[in-house]
Every structure is written in C-alpha cells, then in structure tokens.
C-alpha cells in the first residue's frame, strides 16, 4: 500500500438505536470531561484550586436552606417557561418569544393589582389577574401564529420582535405607574395591603410556584404524549403534508398551540408578579424566555427530562454567581465555565448518534 491509498484515519458512521444506558453513559462522561477541562482552565488562568471552586459552585445552590429554596424557585420558573414553549417546538414552530409572552403576563397582573386595588375585593382581583395574565400571554403568542398560518411569515423573527414590543410597553407603564413619584420605578406593589398577592402556602414563600409548576409539568407530559391535541401537534410538526392528507387543519393547530404556549408563558408572568416579586420591571423575566429554548432542546422536548435540564442550568448559573463573589473573579469567568459544560453536553449528542471507526488492523500489519 502506498501513501495515497491509505485508509482514512477514521470514518464516521451512524449508530442505530442506542440503549438508554449507553446514551446516559456518554452524557455522563461528557459532564465529567467538561469538569476536568474546567478544572484545568481554572488552574491555568486563576491559580485557584479547582476542587475549592467546585465546592463553591455546589455551595452556591445547596449551602443554606434559603439557597435551596431560591434554587427550587428559579428551577420552577425556568421550567414553567420551558414547558410553555415546548408544545410550539414539538410543532416545529420556533417560538423564541417566551420572554415577551411572559412579560405580557407580568404586565397584565401588575395592571390588575394597580388599577383594581381600590374597586374590587382581594379574591376578585386575583381572579382577574389569573384570567388577564394568561390572556395577555396567549394574545402575544397568537399574533405571530395567525400571521404564520395566514401568510406564512417567519415565526422566529416575529416572536423575537414581539419581545421588544412587550419590553417597551412595560418600560412606558413603569413611568406611568411609578412609585414613589419621580423614581421611574414601580417598586413593590400594594406592599402594605398585600392586595393581589398570591397566598403563601405552607409558610414558604416559594412553595406555591413550585407546586403549580410541578402539576403543570405532569399535565404537559400527559397532554403532549397522550391527548389528541398532542398527537395533532406531533403530526403537524413532523410533516404538514401528512397532516393535511389526514384532514388536520394545520392553520388551526398552529394558532391553538400558540394560544396554549403563550398562555402558559402568561401564567409564568402571573407567578413572577403575584407570588415572587410583587413588582413590575422590564427585566423581570430575566432572559428565561431564551434560556427556556435551551432547556427544552436539551431535554428533547420531553417535559420530565426538562426538570433535569432546568436544574442543570439554574445550578450552573447559581454556582457561577457564587464563585464570582467568593473568589473575586469576574462574572464572565463563571460564564466561561457554564459555556464549557454546555458545549460538552450538547457535543455528546454527536457521539450518541454517530460512531467513530478508527483505522484498524491494516495499519499494524504494515509494521
């Protein structure tokens, strides 16, 4: 064999169906590898002991009971928005407007709390908040859906733009409803009367959100996997032509699913304003609408796996925050670590789907 007829160093071939434990083994080793790489980079760049850094990351999430509650609350809110965008994603409708849809829900809740506080009793206001925030989110989701269904506009751009509209709208009303006057901020709404605040369950401020999202997660799992709607969503997502062939009205499914998707985002907004923060700012959703895209994708649009992926992302975020304060490192350094870990996790998918075949026996025979 001469040089130019040598077998390639390796070639890539597709794997068939992989057993579940093999794929988790690959994912697990990806996380381990990522931690090793992070450790090496940390040592090289900061001279800190990587073990201490990892300990701090874990401490950031589990250090005190309060930190655990905050972790759970953050997971539940991220999971809520992720659950919201998932039906749309299953339909291959790339809704990246979760941010705006949730903010529309926040806005509606806050508006009820501020405008109705002197006219309606507490329970009626809460009813109004629930209805209006879900409706606002649904409206924000349905507008791009209607345009997509009627005129086949690009849903990614459209939902993205709707985010900015929501942000600007909230920015304007932050000034209109500012309190105290001249601050340009709304501050805590009804802090004295607590009108429109959602009830505290079991003495824990965050427990209500966690319970609601847990129930939602189960419901979404059933809806997507076992309901007729879920089946229609899956068929439309896989092939619109097949959907039309069996008489599914694709336009209607798109609009219906986005009403649901936006509605749940609106619910997330309600929980953020009514239960957690009791205020309204333009950054209240905190980028969860975008992070949710990653959570949903990493979990392959499976609501139950999304508990794990949202945990992973919140855990990394909290840990990153912790090291930047404890070690006086820049927040960017924490972002680098998060980036490395995500890169390995996403990259592991390649090894689950494909196999590398290295040059075998032939090379040895030559020697």
């Amino acid at each position: 064999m001469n040089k130019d007829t040598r077998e390639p160093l390796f070639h890539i071939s597709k794997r068939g169906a992989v057993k579940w434990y093999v794929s988790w083994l690959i994912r697990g080793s990806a996380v381990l590898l990522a931690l090793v790489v992070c450790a090496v980079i940390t040592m090289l760049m900061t001279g800190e002991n990587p073990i201490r850094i990892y300990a701090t990351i874990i401490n950031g999430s589990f250090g005190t009971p309060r930190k655990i509650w905050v972790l759970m609350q953050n997971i539940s809110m991220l999971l809520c928005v992720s659950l919201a965008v998932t039906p749309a994603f299953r339909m291959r409708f790339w809704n990246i407007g979760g941010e705006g849809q949730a903010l529309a829900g926040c806005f509606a809740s806050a508006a009820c709390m501020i405008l109705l506080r002197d006219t309606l009793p507490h329970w009626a206001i809460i009813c109004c908040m629930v209805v209006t925030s879900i409706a606002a989110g649904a409206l924000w989701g349905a507008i791009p859906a209607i345009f997509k269904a009627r005129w086949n506009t690009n849903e990614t751009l459209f939902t993205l733009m709707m985010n900015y509209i929501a942000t600007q709208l909230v920015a304007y009303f932050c000034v209109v409803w500012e309190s105290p006057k001249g601050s340009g901020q709304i501050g805590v709404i009804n802090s004295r009367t607590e009108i429109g605040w959602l009830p505290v369950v079991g003495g824990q401020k965050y427990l209500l959100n966690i319970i609601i999202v847990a129930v939602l997660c189960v419901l979404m799992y059933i809806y997507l996997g076992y309901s007729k709607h879920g089946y229609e969503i899956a068929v439309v997502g896989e092939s619109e032509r097949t959907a039309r062939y069996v008489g599914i009205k694709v336009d209607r499914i798109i609009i219906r699913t986005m009403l649901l998707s936006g509605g749940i985002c609106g619910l997330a907004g309600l929980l953020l304003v009514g239960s957690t923060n009791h205020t309204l700012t333009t950054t209240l959703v905190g980028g969860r609408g975008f992070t949710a895209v990653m959570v949903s994708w990493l979990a392959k649009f499976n609501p139950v796996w999304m508990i794990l992926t949202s945990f992973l992302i919140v855990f990394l975020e909290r840990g990153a925050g912790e090291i930047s304060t404890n070690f006086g490192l820049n927040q960017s350094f924490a972002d680098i670590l998060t980036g490395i870990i995500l890169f390995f996790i996403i990259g592991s998918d390649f090894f689950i789907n494909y196999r590398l075949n290295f040059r075998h026996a032939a090379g040895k025979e030559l020697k």
Partner: protein
Amino acid sequence: MNQEVPAVRMKNITKRFGPVLANDRAELTIYRGEILALLGENGSGKTTLMNMLSGIYYPDEGTIEIDGREVVIRSPKDAFALGIGMIHQHFKLVDVLTAAENIILGLEGRLDLRKSTEKIRAICDLYGFELNPEQKIYDMSVSQKQTVEIVKVLYRGADILILDEPTAVLTPQESDRLFAVLRKMRDDGKAIIIITHKMHEVESLSDRVAVLRDGRYICDLPTASTNAQEMTDLMVGHSVTLNIDRPEPVNPRPRIEVKGLTVRNEEGILRLEDVSFTANSGEILGIAGISGSGQKELLEAIAGLQPTESGTITYIEDNGEREELIGKDPLKIAAMGVSLSFVPEDRLGMGLVANMDLTDNMMLRSFRSGHSLFTDRNTPRHVAETVVSELEVSTPGLSTPVRRLSGGNVQKVLVGREITSAPTVLLTAYAVRGLDINSSYTIYDLINRQKKDGVAVIYVGEDLDVLLELADRILVLCGGRVSGIVDGKTATKQEVGLMMTRVGGTANE
C-alpha cells in the same frame, strides 16, 4: 472472458449501520465490455454496495480492486479519479443552468465553455445521445435530465458506470433509447452496472446478472443461461409465482365520475385539462403517463387535497345517490360517509410520518374517533399487529419508527392502513415504485383483493407491463389531457407508449 483482469473486484465487503448488517462479506466482479445487472430485493444491500464503490460510504471491512490494483475510495472524488461514476435515481442538477454548465460544474481548471461544449457534443455523437448542451435544465424532460447526468459522468472520464433504477422514470420508448446507448458504451469497452427491478429489462439488456440477498452475495450467472423465474427465486430465496391475476370485474357500477376536470397548480400552470372518465366498482382503472402528466393532481383532486378550477367529481353510491366531492376537504368527504383511501406517491412525506412508530402511524386515520380528549392507542396497536402479521411486514417491533423500515415494508404499512377502513374507492400512486418483486406481488395481490370486494381502484403506475396485466381499463394521460382510455386486455405496450407521448397516440396528431 473470465481470464481477463476485472475492471472492478469487490471482495469480502462488510458494512454495518448500527446493528443492521447492510452488506455481509459481499462480492462483486465486473469486466470491461459488459453490462452487469445487480439484482436483489429491497434491503438486500445493492445500493449500499454501489455507494461504497462510488465513495459515498466507506466499507467496514473488505477490499476493492480496480483493474487488479487494490484501491481505497474515501470520497466520490476518489471514485471519479478511478473512473467510477454513479447515476442516482434522484438527479442532482441545477435547474437554472444549462446542460453544459451543469456538466462542468465543480470541475477544476480554467473555465472554457466553448471547448467544453465541443467535448460534450463529441461524447453525444459517439454514443448517440440526443442532447443540446445550451438547453436549460428546467426546460428538459425527465429523460433529457437523465441524459445530462450520464454525459456528466462520461465527461469526467468515467469508464465504470453505475445506474440506479434508470428506467423508473422513463417511457418504454425512452428506455429503449437508453438501452441502445448503454449497449454502445459496452461495445466501447466500458463496464456498466445497472440496478433494476424490471425483469424484462434485465433479460433484454444485461450480459450477466449478480444476485444479492440479505446483504450477501448469492451468485452470478450469464443472463443467456437463466430466466426471470430463476432470477426471482434466487433473489427471494424460495420459489415465487410471477403471474398477476386479473379476475373479471363482478357487477361493475359507476362509482366515481369525473367530468371536465381542470386544475392549475400554485404557479398557475395548467396541470389537468378537461379530464373526464368514470371509475367503476369492482374494477381497476389503470392510469398511465409520463411522470408529471397530471397523475398526482388527479388523485389529489379526488381525495380533496387539490383545489380545482372547473369540472365535477361525483361520487355515486350503490343506491344511485350522487355526491359532489369538489370543494370538500378529506374530513368532509369522510363525514359524508364516503370511504375513500389514498396511497400517495410520497409515502414518508405524505402518507406516513417517518419519525413515528407503526402504532402512531395507524392512528393517523382513526385518532379522532370517540369523544375522549385522549388518544386510544389500543385499537391502532391491534390494527398494526394485524397488518404486520397479514402482510408479513418485517419490523423489529411495533414501536419502531417507520423510517427505519425498508421501502417495501413502509408501503405495506401504508397500504395496510388504507385498506383497513374498508374503502369503497382506493387511489394508489406508484404503489410499487422502488419495491422488489416479492413486495410488488404482495401489493398487486392486495389491490386485486380490494377489487374483488367491489372497491373502485384507481391505480397510477409507471411499469406498462404491469399496468397491462393488472388493470381492466387504462386511462392514458399526456400533458394533463386524456390521451385515450383503452382496454387492458387488448391494448399493447407500443400503443399505450405512443399515447403517452402524443394525445390520441397517432403520428399526425
């Protein structure tokens, strides 16, 4: 002849896709100056083997020799350098470029269109191709596009040609012309491998046949010393009967009446013009025509999927009641009590959902039944079980995504689902395209059973030999118009072939 050095010798070739063994120590030898027909059922590894020869896949084990020298083919570029060219079933041409531009696309060196055009003309003259190098691809018929593909590989100096089902899209006349060219190339000393499922083509064209079964090489033998029956038995591994039944229609009555149907596509181009015919119950109406003559639009219009411009499509019930189908979508047609089944041409893109498993695909038609919010997966699972066992679908299980099944099994799943609803009208488009002999006969058999049950079958086909054996009447489409309706028992292949290219089929039309 066997004393010569073979042009290609593939030895002990093994290729795995995950757990699937596509080729298991396969062998193949071809000499210069011969046409080799590569035979095998779907999933027997023909295309995989050829893809390894043309550099698309890399074998896991085994060696390839070209002219007695061991080579490594890592990419299609390597294959071209060795003079191997493959003409795929699906053409890979740029529509807005001319033939000549497509042919030289991607070649290195200075661009000299005039010189290239001369060289293309020389190749065409040598082998008798009819090709205008300056013609744009979008102006070309399917057979002209195929010619461009063949000239493209010849231009690049290929002398080992692989053709994957080249006649699937051609009329009988075009196929004859292609065969004449291939024979000329053989006489010129080229090695030609042709993959086809049509036995009469194998018999008339090839010098030698090689048979693959389950990824393994079975044998090769001179075409002259064998026959269709023996070759089929070798492919399948046991004896099969090669006759298509044509039972007399029992009590045929008009079931679907189409009158003056005119259809334009989204771009406003006329696809069907003033089409009128009647399909009877208990009868198979064959539809012949060059691909793209309006077959798809016709079936989709009847199924309620294609907006129409004018004309009527009337469904006639057994008691003589008439219902208009135009302007109704598939759901409304079903709600009227018309049980209409449709096996579309695009199986995985329209008839089935490729990523869903068998059960979920069975559910496509029935998931709405019942008032529950939830889907009932039990009934479809039973349907899937029945289809799998009755039609002998080979699948690892009911939860396997249909995209993992071979072409024949995919079609069995689709046809199986469509006939479970006990239809009164069955529309099929290219029901056996890409299917091997064994699966094809299973499908013919299923269609005949439907006919005996009194179903009005409309069968769009491309293999005229089959249409002439299977259909009671044949409607010939030409450019969206009805060229004529002939009796399946008396019509000849030449007659239908002519009608496909000219309305009425006469020379002076």
